């Protein structure tokens, strides 16, 4: 008996769409074993992480709030990933957006006639774009790999955040804590469901996903991105300029990450602190792939990641599961997904040995 992987005649639609489900299931099973090896009740831990947030209605608002930033960021990333533009520094653009938006609020300091919120959001988008502009410039001008530049700029953004929150932007009335002053009501995202933590960013994230679906599936810009990603030579022949697609990808993903950043600062955080970067920008990469780089699938992907984050927090307090274990969990999900993906265009065959 021999097991072989042979190419399929046609990619399997079934595995394409159910691959993420399989990956999540595999993560649960292996996760159980990993936790057991750590000396924790594995079954209980996995149940807490994956089922508790879903079964307990009290937790649903948390899911929405955690999913929203990842959804917004992942929608932007998905466009670029399809075009072979690998922005893995959304975390940095997310922080840069929050810094820019917060800067507007601190500078205006209540002096603007209307609500400063739209201007803050606009600045957030520009901040994210600015952070992504450098890799775009380096790639289109000097062929510098955007993977490295975007990733490294994340650490620059984190240092900038540290500097601002500990230095010039520190709240004078904050007992020397490294944090900015709390946003005023006018500077904060309104709560849309009274009595919950669900802010305006959550429904807006869903709208962004819908718009991005239309952009990617139905517009010329989306078509250009897919063509460049699948067949760069054909894209050139068809009249799509590779450099333009690179710029568009990075501006779109950077801008959306920046928007997610200011939403988060002006929403759940209510201020900037050195701990602002919680890794949504990195988790969004997993979300984008779980959602098959399709904005509608990404909605589900963001929900799955949000479940693991919320569940992870519960497990941390209740079972003493280390925080890093949640990161391991999320990484496993991506790895299993990549493994399952082999079977989208290949299949397993069991061959009887010819000499037997």
């Amino acid at each position: 008996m021999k097991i072989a992987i042979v190419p399929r005649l046609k990619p399997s639609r079934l595995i394409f769409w159910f691959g993420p489900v399989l990956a999540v299931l595999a993560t649960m099973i292996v996760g159980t074993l990993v936790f057991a090896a750590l000396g924790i009740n594995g079954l209980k831990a996995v149940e807490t992480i994956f089922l508790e947030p879903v079964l307990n209605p009290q937790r649903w608002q948390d899911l929405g709030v955690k999913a929203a930033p990842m959804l917004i960021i992942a929608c932007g990333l998905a466009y670029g990933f399809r075009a072979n533009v690998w922005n893995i520094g959304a975390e940095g653009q997310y922080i840069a957006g929050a810094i820019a938006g917060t800067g507007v609020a601190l500078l205006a300091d209540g002096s603007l006639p209307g609500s400063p919120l739209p201007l803050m959001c606009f600045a957030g988008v520009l901040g994210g774009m600015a952070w992504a502009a450098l890799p775009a410039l380096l790639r289109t001008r000097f062929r510098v790999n955007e993977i490295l530049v975007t990733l490294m700029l994340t650490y620059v953004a984190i240092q900038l955040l540290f500097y601002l929150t500990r230095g010039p932007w520190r709240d004078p009335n904050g007992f020397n804590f490294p944090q900015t002053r709390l946003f005023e009501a006018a500077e904060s995202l309104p709560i849309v469901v009274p009595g919950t933590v669900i802010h305006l960013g959550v429904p807006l994230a869903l709208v962004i996903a819908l718009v991005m679906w239309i952009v990617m599936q139905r517009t010329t810009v989306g078509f250009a991105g897919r063509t460049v990603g699948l067949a760069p030579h054909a894209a050139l022949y068809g009249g799509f300029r590779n450099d333009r697609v690179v710029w568009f990808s990075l501006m779109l993903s950077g801008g959306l990450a920046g928007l997610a950043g200011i939403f988060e600062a002006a929403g759940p955080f209510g201020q900037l602190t050195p701990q602002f970067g919680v890794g949504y920008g990195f988790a969004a990469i997993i979300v984008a792939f779980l959602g098959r780089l399709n904005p509608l699938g990404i909605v589900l992907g963001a929900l799955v990641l949000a479940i693991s984050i919320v569940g992870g927090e519960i497990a941390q307090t209740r079972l003493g599961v280390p925080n890093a274990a949640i990161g391991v969990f999320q990484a496993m999900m991506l790895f299993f997904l990549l493994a399952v993906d082999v079977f989208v265009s290949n299949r397993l065959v069991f061959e009887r040995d010819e000499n037997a």
Partner: protein
Amino acid sequence: MAGQKQKKKDAAPRIALKGICRSFPGIVANDDVTMSVAPGEIHALVGENGAGKSTLVKMLYGVLKPDAGQIYWDGEPVTIDSPKTARYLGIGMVFQHFSLFEAMTVLENIALGLDEPVPRRRLESRIRDILHTYNLPLDPRRAVHTLSAGERQRIEIVRALLLRPKLLIMDEPTSVLTPQEIEHLFKTLRRISEEGCSILYISHKLEEVKRLCDSATILRAGRKVAKCNPGKTSARKLAEMMIGSELKDVARQATAPSRKREVRLSVEGLSLAPSSLFGTPLAEIAFSVQAGEIFGIAGIAGNGQNELFAALSGERPCAPGVIRIGGISAGDKSPSSRRALGLCALPEERNGHAAVPSFTLWENLVLTGRRTLALTSAGLIRRRRARRFSGEVISRFDVRTTGVDAEASSLSGGNLQKFVLGREIAQNPRILVVAQPTWGVDAGAAVTVRQAIADLAAAGTAIVLISQDLDELLLLADTVAVINQGRLTEMGPAATVSVERIGMLMGGIHGEPAVVTPA
């Protein structure tokens, strides 16, 4: 050794196949193929692309295993499980695509391909022996990147002959050669066969098979359909057996003389650096094409055709005045702007260049037709319109497919070519630049494609036809020029130029004139 061969000649065929079957997911590549090759015989294996020739040969050379059937070598049943076994038995193979290291010398390349190392000096003397015996002009010390395709092929032949094969398999050996190089190759092959070595000659060029081969096996859709003596069968009959139906002629209608004066495309002083390390720079190319004229550019692959295509299509922009479309400077314009001016282009490589393999047919229509066919409005793709137009292209050019939602990669070479050519024609181009339009296309589709090009010219479109296929050029073109080493040489009316003259120009400085035999 010769005596031994003589004895075997009467006893058993050199190689015989009985009931060979091999299938891949979704297709049966070989179905119950039975054939044999006698010692010293030059046997042709002919069939269209996809008829199963390559699969059959790969099984002979141990690259693939048959699902069923038996191979006999000198009458003995054998299992050829690897190319090494094949070489051990005495089977040599010259592949269509050479596997050579450009930066190394001939000698180094041959040394690298040997199963067992041979001391450098002994190897060189053996190579020189072979070169001398078979009258093959080649310098073992020269670097491969300085050699012509014909010379490169000789390396592969020497590599095979070093092992003193009893069966030499040649896979489409003439596709990259000039007519003179082909002539020389045939002499070499006849010489090899006279020494008792059998040759299995794979080709779809029937005139060559008629000239060279003693017998022929014809494959169609994986099955052997006939065995015949190609010398006594007409090329047309052979072609019809190959495609399984009657072959139509391409009718070239004259363009109305009144339309013929207007110059649609003019190129002047086009020079371009190569796009890759081993690319060819273009040097001072100049020509012009009138409405209704087919301007043929002959040349062996790799002499600057790709660069010329990229410059004409707009993929590689140049100075504005170098290329003029209908009098308008367009050298710096993008492919989309050139389409808007009426210049459509169709590259040689279908998958990944002319079409996105994983896109559906209608999406591939959008790729080049989105502006010219108004397939977008306000940034949105008009899917219904794109699907309707695709359906029209499919039915007008007889594209065999499951419909507009079929992925481009699911179509055969010929059908995809009909679709992409139809796509360009649907845009009513004033100028069409088309490269190797029938390369890897089955004979039936080739007729359709050529007829479509001829009809388009008759309707007044100026056409630039870049092709390696001389027969195709002489059939279609009004004017013929030759590209060699990035230079365009000597053009004239197709009716007055001779194949020999074109062949010599194709060889140019790259080939070696010493090989040219006086006609």
